[in-house]
């Protein structure tokens, strides 16, 4: 493994007394929806993390645990109206340019250039911090389907998932 070993590091850290060992999801296969449209005809949405919210919304706790809430971000939001709320990542650079992790402003430029069809009126931030069971299952089986239902209602074709 030539890249940073996050799983090993987190496992070692959470082997300390008092912590619940982190549960890592291990999938052997992945679902698949064939991409059949032209990108220039597609409506695109972002799903991101990093504890991003509108400054007018309730902010995420810096060390969120079992927080199943999500934030809806309008497609025409200005970067300066967003704030990053997470101590899990360093964000001093991204406080100056949120496109580092949530490039909604640039997605609009790509729509203006005709590279994509258009930008969804709604985007989402979710899955913040640590999720311990049964909350991880609730996130997967309840929260994500709700968000995805809203994206489908908004006629979204493609989701650019920011972070992973």
């Amino acid at each position: 493994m030539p890249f940073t070993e996050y799983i090993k590091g987190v496992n070692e850290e959470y082997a300390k007394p008092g912590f619940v060992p982190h549960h890592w999801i291990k999938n052997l296969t992945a679902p698949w929806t064939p991409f059949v449209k032209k990108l220039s005809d597609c409506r695109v949405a972002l799903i991101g993390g990093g504890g991003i919210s509108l400054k007018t919304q309730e902010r995420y706790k810096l060390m969120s645990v079992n927080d199943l809430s999500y934030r809806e971000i309008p497609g025409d939001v200005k970067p300066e109206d967003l704030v990053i709320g997470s101590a899990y990542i360093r964000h001093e650079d991204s406080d100056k340019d949120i496109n580092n992790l949530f490039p909604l402003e640039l997605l609009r430029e790509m729509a203006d250039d005709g590279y994509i069809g258009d930008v969804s009126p709604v985007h989402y931030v979710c899955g913040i911090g640590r999720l311990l069971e049964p909350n991880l299952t609730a996130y997967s089986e309840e929260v994500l389907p709700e968000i995805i239902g809203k994206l489908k209602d908004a006629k979204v074709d493609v989701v650019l998932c920011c972070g992973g």
Partner: protein
Amino acid sequence: MNLAARKAEEEGLCTVVVGSAYDIMECVKPPRAVFTDFPMGHPFGRNNKQQHLSIMKDAFRILEQAQEPGNIVVLPYYWGEPWEWIPGKVVEDHGFKNILSDEGKKIDE
């Protein structure tokens, strides 16, 4: 956002993940993914619009071209200087007892 991508594809939406934790992506296995070897929290790079756009276009190219689910395409970008993730730094910064308290544990003094 790997789980979100999987759920979206199950529901008929096409997705591509831009992530910076290769081992986690490999474990969760999103349908389509590109990897940038950057510090966590900066999947599109650092304060560089041309790089942001370039990575977004790389991701969309994989969206268009991927033939099967579960592959991670490593993109050829460099952070610009050496960096290292230090396990436990978050715990050190926030405090062991604070984190246990956040997780709903009773703290023994």
